[in-house]
């Protein structure tokens, strides 16, 4: 590169030459590593494009500045150290970039993301840019609180083991009065669900104000608990315009004895971290609805992969996160969903390129995050849901409970019976993937609500091609 004087002479210089590319760099254990999918403009060299991403997401600007020489700039520069062509996708490259831990404020998702997905996503020499995955070093993870409750403690508090939890979102999403809304909650919980849920856009509208809703929902929760002898809950959505409003609503939910509150992803990373601290302080389960994520997670070439959002949310500290169903109405390739579920639930997530997981990730004792499967699922898919998603998951059947021909209680009972009979069969060693429909039909003989559910939704499937799929097929080996 020549002398320092040449390096810091005013003018424009390729990012790679400025020190943002180092093919020999060996990342430290304490480095944050990001892998981006870059699509350079025509004629832009991929290595230079990777160096530019490293530069723009760390210390660089478009021209040389002499003030770099007032800093230990070699350490602060992010370093692109590896660029691989994306298998089967000409013009796209996976670029690996390492960041020194001191570039980031401790315990702050806002600060981490301001660098990693800040200015760089609008950078002109790239047609598109996607953050695929990140390796968070243990040293940095330990500065985050993580889930306030976690899967293990949530199950102990709810006294529910050995099976997925069951939930439903109250429908219609909008328009019910509080009293009618609470009716839906009561019927579903009494019929056999563990949780009912506010939808993401139920906050405090003219047709139903939040305080009134909270009061009726807690009547429903307690009445159902007395009717069944089980712990029950309703995710009271405390999403609001300001932190003060959210704290007021969350405090009221706690005062009423609710075991859980909920927030939406759209409130922002800082607000989520504030609510995570509130939830830890108050022994509350914190449910996160991922409202808005599809705007930036779904397309493969540009945005942020949901597996990264899941990682950030485990660090930020929520207890539940909507993470895909595979079989339902919303986007979800089976391999990609498996990778996301691993990120939520593992103590140590292993690199698995077929599932889109680029790095080993030691979770360093951060509690586990319960994934939630919601959107267009029904009792007839129980064997598929358990096979794909396992048992540490909340299965949410909204339409699949409330739309039952014999009523909401019958819908809830159908789901609960389908779930228990399938877990029992799995544990007995039966091949539920193939025998599932028969196992359900057998239970339908003694359980008429299940029989009716199977009949009503027998033809409902959502078989569309996923847009967000993994790039590596099982036989591929990485050079």
């Amino acid at each position, binding site marked *: 590169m020549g002398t320092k004087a040449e390096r810091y002479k005013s003018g424009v210089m390729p990012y790679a030459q400025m020190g943002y590319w180092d093919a020999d760099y060996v990342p430290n254990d304490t480095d944050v590593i990001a892998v981006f999918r870059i699509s350079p403009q025509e004629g832009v060299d991929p290595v230079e494009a990777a160096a530019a991403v490293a530069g723009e997401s760390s210390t660089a600007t478009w021209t040389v500045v002499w003030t770099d020489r007032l800093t230990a700039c070699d350490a602060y520069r992010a370093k692109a150290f590896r660029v691989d062509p994306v298998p089967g996708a000409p013009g796209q490259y996976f670029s690996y970039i390492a960041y020194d831990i001191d570039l980031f404020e401790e315990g702050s998702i806002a600060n981490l993301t301001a660098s990693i997905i800040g200015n760089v996503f609008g950078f002109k020499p790239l047609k598109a840019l996607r953050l695929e995955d990140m390796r968070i070093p243990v040293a940095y993870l330990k500065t985050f609180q993580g889930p306030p409750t976690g899967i293990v403690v949530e199950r102990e508090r709810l006294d529910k083991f050995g099976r997925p939890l069951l939930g439903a979102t109250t429908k219609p999403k909008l328009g019910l009065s509080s009293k009618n809304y609470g009716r839906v909650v009561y019927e579903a919980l009494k019929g*056999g669900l563990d949780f009912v849920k506010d939808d993401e856009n139920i906050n405090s509208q003219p047709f139903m104000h939040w305080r009134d809703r909270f*009061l009726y929902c807690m009547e429903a929760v307690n009445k159902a608990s007395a009717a069944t*002898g089980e712990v029950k809950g309703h995710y009271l959505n405390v999403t609001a315009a300001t932190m003060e409003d959210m704290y007021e609503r969350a405090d009221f939910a706690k005062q009423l004895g609710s075991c859980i509150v909920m927030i939406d992803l759209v409130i922002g990373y800082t607000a989520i971290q504030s609510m995570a601290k509130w939830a830890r302080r108050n022994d509350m389960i914190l449910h996160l609805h991922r409202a808005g994520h599809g705007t930036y997670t779904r397309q493969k070439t540009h945005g942020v992969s949901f597996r990264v959002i899941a990682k950030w949310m485990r660090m930020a500290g929520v207890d539940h996160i909507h993470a895909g169903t595979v079989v339902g109405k919303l986007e979800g390739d089976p391999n990609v969903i498996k990778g996301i579920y691993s990120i939520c639930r593992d103590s140590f997530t292993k690199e698995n390129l077929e599932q889109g997981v680029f790095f080993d990730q030691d979770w360093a004792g951060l509690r586990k995050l319960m994934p939630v499967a919601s959107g267009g699922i029904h009792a007839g898919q129980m064997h598929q849901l358990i096979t794909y998603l396992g048992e540490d998951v909340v299965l949410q059947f909204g339409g699949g409970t409330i739309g039952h021909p014999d009523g909401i209680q019958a819908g809830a009972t159908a789901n609960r019976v389908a779930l228990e009979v399938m877990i029992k069969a799995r544990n*007995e060693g039966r091949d539920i993937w193939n025998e599932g429909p028969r196992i359900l039909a057998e239970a339908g003989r003694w359980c008429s609500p299940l029989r009716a559910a199977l009949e009503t939704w027998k033809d409902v499937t959502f078989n569309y091609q996923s847009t967000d799929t993994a790039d590596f097929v099982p036989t591929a080996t990485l050079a």
Partner: protein
Amino acid sequence: MKITQGTFSFLPDLTDAEIRAQIDYSLGHGWAIGVEFTDDPHPRNCYWEMWGNPMFDLRDAAGAMTEVLACRDAHPETYIRVNAFDATRGFETTRLSFIVNRPSTEPGFLLKRHEVGGRQIQYTIESYAAQAPEGRRYVG
């Protein structure tokens, strides 16, 4: 009413063969079987009486079944559950828990409402059976 705590309460009562199959599944994962009983089925009563310690060293389902049957003989008019405990790092908790015996009648729970200001209600759930002293709650 029928209390629906536990993993399989929405199914018909498990036969002894079905209970044994679930114990086999649990032992296959290296989990320890524990048997517990109570005559206080309040949803937040997490400490049922232990029918001995969890059987950490027992790897044979027949042995665990012997304990289930012995507990049933000694306490026929109580709730009895089988727990499977996983001591693996990162879990260290119950992984399966299901009811294997119930009293012949289940009177259920009273929901008490204590009205306070601002339309708020403080709720208390009380077991009808637990009004009687321990040991005399589900007789006959």
